[in-house]
C-alpha cells in the first residue's frame, strides 16, 4: 500500500486544515515534498493546486504568506532553518491559519524534533493531521510468489528456463516476460529501446 498516495488522497479529500508528514530515515523530505505536490496535482482536475516550497527564512515566509495563491503549500525546511525560525512560525501560527490557506510540512525526524523543542505550540496546530511515511512497500513475498507461479504456468517454464531462453533469444518478447525478469531480479536482461 502506498502511504504517500494515501496521505495525498486524504489531504485532497479533507479539503481544509494543516498537515505534517514525518518521513523516515531512508527518505528524502524534499523528494517526498515534490512527489506530494505532483500527486495532489494529479488528483485534481484543475492544474497545479499545490505549491512546493523550501523554508529558509521564516520571517520572509510570514511576510509573503498573504501574497501566495490559494492552493495547498507543501513545504520542507532548508539547511539554514534554525530554532529561531520555528519560534517565528509559532508566534505567527494563528495569523497564518486565519488566512484559510493550507500548509503541509514535510519533515524528517531530526527536523521534527527541532520543531517540537523550539515550537511546541506549533506542533499542536497539526493535531491529528500528522502522518508518518516510511519507505514505499512493494508486493509481499506471497504476492510475488503468486505472480511468479502464474507466469510459470502461463509459459510452462521454470524461472531458470525462462532466463536461459530469453538470453538465447528463443522466446518471443512479451510484457509478462519483462515483469517476470524484474521479479527475479534480472531486469538487466531487458534491453533499453534503441534511441
Amino acid at each position, binding site marked *: 500500500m502506498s502511504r*504517500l*498516495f494515501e496521505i495525498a488522497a486524504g489531504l485532497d479529500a479533507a479539503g481544509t486544515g494543516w498537515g505534517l508528514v514525518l518521513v523516515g530515515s531512508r527518505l528524502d523530505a524534499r523528494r517526498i515534498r515534490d512527489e506530494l505536490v*505532483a500527486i495532489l496535482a494529479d488528483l485534481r482536475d484543475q492544474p497545479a493546486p499545490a505549491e512546493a516550497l523550501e523554508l529558509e527564512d521564516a520571517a520572509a515566509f510570514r511576510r509573503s504568506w498573504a501574497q501566495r495563491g490559494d492552493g495547498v503549500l507543501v513545504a520542507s525546511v532548508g539547511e539554514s532553518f534554525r530554532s529561531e525560525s520555528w519560534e517565528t512560525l509559532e508566534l505567527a501560527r494563528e495569523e497564518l491559519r486565519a488566512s484559510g490557506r493550507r500548509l503541509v510540512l514535510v519533515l524528517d525526524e531530526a527536523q521534527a524534533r527541532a520543531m517540537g523543542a523550539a515550537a511546541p505550540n506549533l506542533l499542536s496546530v497539526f493535531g491529528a493531521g500528522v502522518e508518518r511515511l516510511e519507505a514505499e512497500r512493494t*508486493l509481499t513475498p506471497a504476492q510475488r510468489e503468486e505472480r511468479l507461479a502464474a507466469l510459470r504456468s502461463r509459459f510452462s517454464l521454470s524461472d531458470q528456463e525462462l532466463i536461459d531462453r530469453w538470453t538465447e533469444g528463443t522466446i518471443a518478447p512479451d510484457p509478462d516476460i519483462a*515483469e517476470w525478469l524484474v521479479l527475479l*531480479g534480472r531486469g538487466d536482461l531487458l534491453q533499453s529501446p534503441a534511441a
Partner: protein
Amino acid sequence: MSGAPTEVHDLRSRIGGSLPPLAEESAERLCERLRAVLIRAAKRDAMICTRKDVNDEVVLADPPQDLARKHPDARAIVAGSKDRATKGALRRPDGAWLHFAVTVREHGSGPLVLLAYGFEVCFPGGHAPEWLRFDLNPPGSDNDDRGMRSHFHPGNKSIQVPCAAMTPADALLLCIYDVQVRHR
C-alpha cells in the same frame, strides 16, 4: 507474419509510432500517477473502486532486496491478478475489470525509459470477446523485425493487431473510458 512485404512492416511501424517519452523519473512516481488516474475516474463514476482498492491493487513489484542489489534499475508496477478469471478490485460500472503491469528502467536522474506494458480489460460472463489487451513488448529482435512491438489482442492471444504505443497513463485511460460495450 514473417513473410509480410516491407510496406506492411512500414505500415505497422507508422501505426505503432515512436515510443512516447515519460514525464516521471521514478517508478514510485509513475505508480502514484496511475493510482491518481484511477481515483479521478472513480470520482467521475467511470470506475467503482475505492481509494483503498486502488492503493492495495496498484503496487510496485520490486524483487526482494537481495536480488535487486545487483540490478536495481529495471522496475515494475502491477495491478490486479495475473489470473484472467479473477475479478480484481479495479472494476467498472459495466462489470468489466482491469489489470495491468508496466516495466520501466530508471536512470537516477531524467525520465524513466518505458520497457513494456500490458493493460487488459476483462468483460463479465457471456461477453465476446472475453478480454482485450494492449501490449508493448520489451525490445527484442522478434518485435523489431515484425514492427509489432505495440499491438492489441482482441480476446485471442494468437491475434495481434498493431496499435499506437502509449504512455502507461494513456493506456490506462483508454481501458477505463474507451474499451466499452456499445449498445445498439
